[in-house]
């Protein structure tokens, strides 16, 4: 038996599990989404989505919240990744641990923690009011801002680690070379560091975007009833309204939009030059 074949065979157990618990249920759900209450074939679950601006607005909100989360994690995460890239091995380990540590706690508990911090009587509002900076408490929860804060907290680790990994791969003498050729630090960042960590940025942004699009717990807890997103209404259709076909259709619409947007995005960024530079 050749080596490649035997390695392929080693993946068989994982493949069988994936087939049974992931691909088969997905196919069943896909079939379900094309059925009416009498189990006859119909497109009504999908046409309903296009006709009813309520659903379109929810999809748009899901995308909007995800994009804000991507932006927030990118802007907050980049400096952390830069810090890690220039730190010594020991410090790198400590920062990686600090970034991953919150993930040891259930996301439900972490989100409730945010409710305590951000609520009308939470300590942020209390402090700002005591300082006399505001008169009315700020609305930091149960709106899109609250959801973005929660999602940013949940997913920033992925962004930091993806960017840090690509920063590690950059030869430190490149910024020295840029500097001696006359580039200031800011110039060096935009002409050398940033273009060279593009693979990390693409990985981080697509990861955080996909995770935000499909996030359920955080929008449910921190968005409340007023900021519903696609996973939340799909859940409601299935668990509360018991309209499984519509719930399944909503889930596939979400999946389809995510794949479409991510594909468009990577096609747009991965130009001919990008492929030539970063192809292994």
């Amino acid at each position, binding site marked *: 038996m050749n080596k490649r074949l035997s390695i392929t065979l080693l993946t068989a157990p994982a493949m069988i599990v994936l087939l049974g618990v992931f691909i088969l249920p997905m196919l069943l759900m896909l079939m379900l989404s094309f059925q009416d209450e009498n189990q006859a074939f119909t497109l009504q679950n999908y046409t309903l989505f296009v006709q009813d601006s309520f659903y379109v607005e929810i999809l748009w909100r899901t995308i909007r919240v995800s994009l804000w989360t991507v932006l927030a994690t990118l802007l907050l995460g980049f400096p952390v990744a830069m810090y890690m890239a220039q730190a010594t091995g020991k410090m790198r380990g400590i920062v990686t641990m600090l970034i991953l540590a919150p993930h040891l706690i259930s996301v439900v508990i972490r989100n409730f923690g945010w409710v305590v911090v951000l609520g009308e009587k939470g300590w942020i509002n209390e402090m700002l009011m005591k300082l006399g900076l505001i008169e009315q408490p700020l609305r930091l929860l149960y709106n899109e801002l609250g959801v973005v804060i929660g999602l940013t907290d949940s997913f920033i680790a992925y962004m930091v680690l993806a960017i840090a990994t690509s920063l590690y791969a950059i030869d430190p003498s490149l910024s*020295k*070379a840029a500097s*001696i*050729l006359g*580039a*200031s630090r800011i110039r060096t960042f935009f002409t050398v560091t940033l273009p060279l960590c593009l693979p990390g940025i693409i990985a981080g942004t697509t990861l955080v975007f996909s995770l935000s699009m499909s996030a359920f717990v955080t929008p449910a807890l921190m968005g409340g009833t007023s900021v519903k997103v696609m996973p939340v209404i799909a859940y409601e259709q299935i668990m509360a309204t018991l309209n499984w076909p519509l719930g399944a259709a909503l889930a596939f619409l979400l999946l389809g939009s995510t794949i479409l947007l991510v594909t468009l995005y990577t096609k747009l960024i991965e130009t001919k*030059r990008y492929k030539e*530079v970063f192809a292994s």
Partner: protein
Amino acid sequence: MEVTKVIDVELRGIMKKFQNNVVVQDFNLQVEQGEFISFLGPSGCGKTTTLNMIAGFLDPDGGDLLIKGQRMNGVPPYKRELGMVFQTYSLFPHMTVAENIAYGLKLRKIGKQEMQDRVKRVLELVKLPNVADRYPKQLSGGQRQRIAIARALVIEPSLLLLDEPLSNLDAKLREELRDELKRLHQEIGVTTIFVTHDQEEALALSDRIVVLNHGFVEQIGTPLEIYNQPASEFVHTFIGKTNRMEGEVIAIDGDTLTLRTTGGLLVQATGQQRAFALQQKVVIFVRPEKIKLSDAADTAQPNRVKGHLQLASFLGSYTECEVATGAHTLSVKVQMSDKSAEQEAGKTVYCQWNAEDVLVMPVERG
């Protein structure tokens, strides 16, 4: 007629420490315009640290650094107008060769036409006129280093810094690029500081060499001075293979010293730089290439010793031999042009050398 020298770089008592560890101490140097100067020493001798201070990546903890007469302490690298070539090539992987070279020109807001002309000219200078549109990873190591040199030269720097630019290349390419560097320097005449741990590179390229050891300058001199009149035992041993014997002065007759080694061998030495006293403890050096091997003793030659040829390694242009002479084992280099080059281990030979080829130094304290 007195010609006034133009000093391009001046180091005045430069000192650098990392935490409490002094890595460069009291470094004084004047580099003349157009000079090719090498910093030579083993790793950790402070040569790269000094280069980084000249480049501006590190700031000296003491002393003054002047480039073209201007004090440069605290001036960031991007304001120094220098060219630098790194050991790892350091080409920007996301830019083509032409873009890499144009990088420094763009920052200087050079017009498009002139930029293209200068990129083209410098590519011809490094003999790679057809690679402008390639990416660095599509080039070989030697080509990359040529492009790195082109990128450093195109901005017409006041000073070219070379940080071990040849050490990542294999032996043949290294020699080729070494000659290339020499040709470029003769053609352009840019003041150059070259950091290396390879004494051959330093000897071949430099107008002057600064030999460094443990952060101290051991000697500054031309390659010939460094080779023939080493200021210290370190310089002599670092610059090439040598035979070292300890002994004392037993007779002084005008210019001629007679020495007796600890092994009882009598050695005559003439033309020494230093003065010695009778009974002074000394170290005696003879380079392997200065010793001749023969089957019969030449009685006119006072410096001769009979020995057993233990080892003969044929290395192409010469044969490296090891001769056991009782108290001392001597290393001997026999050139191929010599008829006696074909040496076979196991036979009895005579090692003979001239009195003027012996270097005598006082025993260093500590």
